[in-house]
């Protein structure tokens, strides 16, 4: 796969990703600093009732980790499938001019297969929220 623009010789090595590592540490440091500052500056008066979770002013009942509608899970699964598809499209989108008509036809076959599955899912009622 060729990610470069018009064959420019700018292949990047892992060390080129150093800025992102440093950026990560700077960002983490910023959050730590802010959290520490608010911890030192803010008051600390904790009571049992204050530490309870909010529930419309009534006493909180039971565990909040209740079973959640399966539809959310289904959407997540669908996302995984389609996201993989989008990732496949990235190298193609960069190189489709070299791949030409064959590339487009292959992509078309890929999309048709995916859309068939997609319509099957819709027909099955995956997005019907009762």
């Amino acid at each position, binding site marked *: 796969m060729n*990610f470069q*623009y*018009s064959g420019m010789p*700018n292949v*990047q090595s892992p060390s*080129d990703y150093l*800025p*992102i590592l*440093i*950026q*990560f540490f*700077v*960002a*983490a440091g*910023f*959050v730590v600093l*802010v*959290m520490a*500052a*608010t*911890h030192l*500056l*803010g*008051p600390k*008066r*904790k009571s049992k009732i*204050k*530490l*309870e*979770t*909010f*529930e419309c002013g009534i006493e*909180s009942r039971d*565990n*909040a*980790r*209740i079973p*959640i509608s399966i539809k*959310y899970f289904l*959407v*997540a699964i*669908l*996302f995984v499938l389609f*996201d993989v598809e*989008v990732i496949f499209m*990235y190298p193609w*989108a*960069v190189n*489709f*001019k070299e791949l030409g*008509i064959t590339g*487009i036809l292959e*992509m078309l076959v890929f*999309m048709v297969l995916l*859309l068939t599955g*997609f319509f099957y899912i*819709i027909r099955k009622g995956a*997005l*019907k*929220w009762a």
Partner: protein
Amino acid sequence: MPSLEEISKSVHDLLTTALPPVMALLTGFLIAGLLVIGLFTVLGLVLVFMERKVSAYMQIRVGPNRVGFKGTAQTLADTLKLVLKEGLTPSGSDKFLFNLAPFLVLITSMLLMAPIPFARNFQMWDLNIGVLYITAISSISVIGILMAGWSSNNKYSLLGAMRSGAQIVSYELSAGMAILTVVVLSGSLKISDIILSQQNGWWIFKGHIPVIISFVIFIIAVTAETNRAPFDMAEAESELTAGFHTEYSGMKFALFFLAEYVNIFIVCAIGAVLFLGGWMPFHIGSWGAFNRVMDYIPSSVWFMSKTFFLIFVIMWFRWTFPRLRIDQLLNLEWKYLLPISLFNLLLVTLVAIMGWYF
């Protein structure tokens, strides 16, 4: 007035002459990191103020106008108040995840700052897969939101996080497709190449109807991805109190808030880069004099004005459309936007192959 490019170049030269190469590199990175933090806080303050003013004028009221000059220091005062507040961790919560979530959300949006070109040749990190990097990193923030909702041990938080998770991952698809249309036209994933490909016209003008369609889809998708109204299912203050950050208080809440507003800036900046030409000035074909006048405006001003225009549009949405229900929201994405963007991508490919753009 020296441009940002010249300033950064002279700082770079100063560092390389005064320090050994490794130290110069590290100092450069450190300066960039500190600048990003500075920009981050300033953006947070400005955008919150802008949001309050915009919403005020849309509702025919004045908005904050007491603190500082015409209320400009209002958000600073609010931040100061939030720093001095107690940060509570509820007793039933998963304490580690509860405190980790703001880190994750904020670090994600800070990492997204790296490939954004603020002016001509003024970019912290121009990597060759810039667009892919942005799509990849921006999807991490959903983990932070889910983490916050789950660890709070609060019913509202969990519901908000679940909705937000489903919503963000769904709209990421059509946002990705809309970004891909521009990648197809410019033939590169590198941000600077994408901007340079718009030298003779921005993609939204050059690419005809398909690019306009993908621009509209992009704006809708990023509005949903940043949890903005009319897609603010994650917060939905009238039904879920505050959604996934109900239990967060003080500065921990402020960090979520900050990350939210900076994310709006980032997605609008990306939209401006991809569709509106980034820092490229506005040119009209062969109007030499007009184009030269446009060239006089600094590139950073161009970039910022485009970005803030898009931010204003997104704020405008908030007071124009009523909130959607979660099933309507997912229907909109899966049944309309996703198929449309798929076919739109094919259409753009056809346009690019046939050379139908200018």
